[in-house]
C-alpha cells in the first residue's frame, strides 16, 4: 500500500520548515535509513532519512518550498508495481497530535499582528520605515552591527561559529568576522564564562552565548561573584562590560532540566542588568544597548520567540534604553504587567477580555533590572487593578516583587489585591498534557483579570 512521507518535526519547537533539496527523484527506490531530502528548520539544515522501504512514487512538495508545515505530506512512497493513486488523499490539516507536541506556541495569532508596537512605542521617531523580521534575525543584526561598530566586541560560546549557532542566532557571523571574533568554545560553561569575564575586566566587550540559560547554572559563580560584584569590590576600578545571552525558560517538551526561567534569579543581583525582550524590535534595540553598556548584562531570550516575526524600525542604528517599559496595549480597566514570552499570554488574554468588554492595559517591562516602576504605578493609578504574568516559578517571582512594590507605593489606588500569574510550582514535566498545565496560559490570565475586576 502506498504511504505518505510527512514533513518531519526536527526540533521540539519546529512548526514549519523549508524543503531545501530532494536527494532522490520519482521512481527511485529507497531503503529505510536512506537520506532522501534536506530540510531546513529554524535552527539548522538537517538530512531527512526514509523510514519505510519502497519506490518514490510522487514528490508532492517540490524542493525550495518554504514554510512547509510539520506533518504535511511531502511525497508518496509506493510498493513495486503499485500506482501512486492508491495513496490516501492528503489531509488538509496537520493531525491534532502534532499540536500537542508543540503546546508552548499557542499564540500564532500574535506573530503577524505587531501593530501595537509601532503605534504605541516612543522608541523611534514617528514615520520611521519598518521592516518585518524575526527575533532571531533581530538579535543577529544587533550583534553584527555592534561588532562592526566596535572592534573590542566579540562573541564566544558553544557552536556559535562553524555550526552557525545552536539556534542559528549567530548564523553567518563567523564568515563575516572570522574566528578571532566568533570564538567556538568547548562545552565548559564555568570556564568560558570566566574567560569572558576576565577578558571584559581587561577592557574587551565579550558577548558570551549560553546554549541555554539552564547550562549557565554551571557558570553562575562567574556571572554573579566575578562579573556583577567586582566593580563594587574594587571601589569602582574594575569594570566588566559583558553580555551573557541565550535562550531562557521553557522551549517545548524538553522537561525539567532544560525548561527553567531565571528572570527572578538574576533580577535579584545588584551589579547586574537584566533584560528579557518580547518583540524583535526590543530584542534588537536592547541587545545593542546591552553590548554598549559598561556593566554585566544578563540577556534572557526565548527559543519559542526566536521564530516570531515583528515590525522593526528600518534604521541604521537604533537602541532602546534600559529601565523603560513599553505599553503594548492601552486600556482602562486593569493593568497586566508582563515581560518576555509572558507577553504572549498577556496580549492574548487582553484580546479575549476586550471581547467581553474589559479593556486591559498591557505593560511589557522589557528590562527587569532596572525595572520601570513608574510606568506600572502610573497605569495602576488609572486602572486600580493589576495582574502580573510570567512563566517562572511562583515563589519569589518578579510578580511578587511588583506586588510588593505596588503595596508600598500605590496601595491607596488599588481596588483589588494584585494577582500573580506564574508557571506552576513544579519541575517542568515532559508529558505534553502535563507540560501544558505547568505553563501559564492566557485562560488563567483572563480568569485572574476577572477576579480583580470582580466580574
Amino acid at each position, binding site marked *: 500500500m502506498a504511504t505518505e512521507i510527512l514533513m518531519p518535526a526536527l526540533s521540539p519547537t519546529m512548526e514549519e520548515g523549508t524543503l531545501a533539496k530532494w536527494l532522490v527523484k520519482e521512481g527511485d527506490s529507497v531503503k529505510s535509513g536512506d537520506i532522501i531530502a534536506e530540510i531546513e528548520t529554524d535552527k539548522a539544515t538537517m538530512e531527512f532519512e526514509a523510514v519505510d522501504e519502497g519506490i518514490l512514487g510522487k514528490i508532492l512538495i517540490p524542493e525550495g518550498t518554504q514554510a512547509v508545515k510539520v506533518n504535511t505530506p511531502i511525497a508518496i512512497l509506493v510498493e513495486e508495481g503499485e500506482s501512486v493513486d492508491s495513496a490516501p488523499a492528503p489531509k488538509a490539516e496537520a493531525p491534532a497530535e502534532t499540536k500537542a507536541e508543540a503546546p508552548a506556541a499557542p499564540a500564532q495569532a500574535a506573530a503577524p499582528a505587531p501593530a501595537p508596537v509601532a503605534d504605541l512605542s516612543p522608541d523611534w521617531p514617528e514615520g520611521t520605515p519598518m521592516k518585518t523580521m524575526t527575533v532571531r534575525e533581530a538579535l543577529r543584526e544587533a550583534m553584527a552591527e555592534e561588532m562592526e561598530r566596535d572592534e573590542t566586541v566579540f562573541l564566544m560560546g558553544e557552536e556559535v561559529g562553524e555550526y552557525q549557532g545552536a539556534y542559528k542566532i549567530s548564523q553567518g557571523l563567523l564568515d563575516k568576522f572570522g574566528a578571532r571574533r566568533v570564538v567556538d568554545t568547548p562545552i565548559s560553561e564555568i570556564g568560558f564564562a570566566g574567560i569572558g569575564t*576576565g577578558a571584559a575586566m581587561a577592557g574587551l566587550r565579550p558577548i558570551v552565548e549560553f546554549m541555554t540559560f539552564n547550562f549557565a547554572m554551571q557558570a553562575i559563580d562567574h556571572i554573579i561573584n*566575578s562579573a556583577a560584584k567586582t566593580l563594587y*569590590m574594587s*571601589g569602582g*576600578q574594575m569594570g566588566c562590560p559583558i553580555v551573557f545571552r541565550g535562550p531562557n525558560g521553557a522551549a517545548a517538551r524538553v522537561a525539567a532540566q532544560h525548561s527553567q526561567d531565571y528572570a527572578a534569579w538574576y533580577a535579584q543581583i545588584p551589579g547586574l542588568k537584566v533584560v528579557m525582550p518580547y518583540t524583535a524590535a526590543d530584542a534588537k534595540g536592547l541587545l545593542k544597548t546591552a553590548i554598549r553598556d559598561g556593566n554585566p548584562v544578563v540577556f534572557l531570550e526565548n527559543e519559542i520567540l526566536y521564530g516570531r516575526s515583528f515590525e522593526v524600525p528600518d534604521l541604521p542604528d537604533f537602541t532602546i534604553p534600559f529601565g523603560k517599559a513599553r505599553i503594548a496595549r492601552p486600556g482602562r480597566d486593569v493593568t497586566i504587567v508582563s515581560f518576555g514570552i509572558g507577553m504572549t499570554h498577556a496580549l492574548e488574554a487582553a484580546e479575549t477580555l476586550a471581547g467581553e468588554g474589559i479593556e486591559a492595559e498591557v505593560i511589557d517591562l522589557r528590562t527587569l533590572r532596572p525595572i520601570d516602576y513608574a510606568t506600572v504605578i502610573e497605569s495602576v493609578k488609572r486602572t486600580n487593578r493589576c495582574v502580573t504574568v510570567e512563566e517562572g516559578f511562583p515563589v519569589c517571582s518578579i510578580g511578587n516583587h511588583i506586588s510588593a512594590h505596588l503595596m508600598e507605593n500605590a496601595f491607596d489606588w488599588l481596588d483589588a489585591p494584585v494577582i500573580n500569574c506564574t508557571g506552576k510550582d513544579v519541575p517542568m514535566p515532559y508529558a505534553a498534557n502535563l507540560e501544558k498545565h505547568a505553563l501559564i496560559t492566557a485562560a488563567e490570565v483572563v480568569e485572574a483579570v476577572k477576579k480583580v475586576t470582580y466580574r
Partner: protein
Amino acid sequence: MVRKPAARQSTPNVSKDELLQYYRDMLLIRRFEEKAGQLYGMGLIGGFCHLYIGQEAVVVGLESVAKEGDKRITSYRDHGHMLACGMDARGVMAELTGRIGGYSKGKGGSMHMFSREKHFYGGHGIVAAQVPLGAGLAFSDKYRGNDNVTFVYFGDGAANQGQVYETYNMATIWELPVVFVIENNQYAMGTSLKRSTRSTTLYGRGEAFGIPGEQVDGMDVLAVKAAGEKAVAHCRAGKGPYILEVMTYRYRGHSMSDPAKYRTREEVQKMRDERDAIEHVRELLLQGKHASEDDLKAIDKEIKEIVNDSAEFAKESPEPPLEELWTDIYAEEKSA
C-alpha cells in the same frame, strides 16, 4: 609533605643589585604581613585575613621576570602579590582596616583588591575563580596582538577545582599567553595534598592538555626567577600556556582562625630553620660580600618604616562615608 633541603647554587649568577632587590621585596612582604597579623589581633582588621609569610620567594621571583603591561591575578592570599607588583603598602593596609584610603575604598577588604595601574586584577575570594579569569586577561592580550603575558596564581587546593582544567583546555586550544603558577604550599586549608589527591605532581596534570611545566623550589627566589624566565619566554613566543608548580610553605595558618591541628609545630619550625627564602638571600648577600650586616640592618629599618607608616595610615584613614554604600554598583554607561 616536607621536602629535604634542596641543594642550592653555591655561586649563583646574580648581581648584587638584584639580590638586594629580592631581599628588600621579600622582607617588605614578611614585615607587612607580620604587621597585618598584629593589627588583626588588635581588632583593626576583620573577617578573613590570609597571610603570605613563608611564600615570599614565589611572587618576588616571578615579578622579576615581568615587563610593563604583563598582568597578574591571584586568590584571596593576595597581599604579597600586590606589594611585589609595586602597589602602595598604605593602600593595601588601609583596605585591610576597611578605610577609605584602601585600594577598594574599604569595600573589598583583604581578599578583594585591584589596581588597573599595576595590572593587578585581584584578589578573588572564590577558590580557583581567578584561573579562568586570568586566562581571560591573557585572551585580551592575544586578541590585541601584543606579547604580554598573564601570571595566574593559585594554590594546591584550587588545583582540584574543575574550572582549572576547563581553563587548561581552552588556554591550549587558543594558545593563550598565560603562566599558571601553582603555589603548592602543601595544605589546602587543613587538608594536605596527599589527603586530597593521588595525583600529587600538580604540574604534571598539564600534560593531559599538552601544557609544558615544571616543579620549582619556591623557597629559592633564584630558582623561581630562572623557571619564570623560561615560562615567560615560552608564552611571549606565542607557544601557549606554561605551568610552574612552585613548592613553597606557609608558616602561618590558612587564615587567622586556623587551629593548626593538621601539621606539627616541628614541621613548621624545620621549614623556617632550614628553608627560609629570606634567610637564603641574606646568606648569599653576606657570603658574597655584597652587603654587610650593617647594610642589611639599614634595609630592615627602611622596610620597618614603610610598614609602620602603612599601619599608621591604615589606622588614621577614615572609614568610608555612608554614601559609599551606594556607589560603584554600576559603571556609567559609555559608548565604546
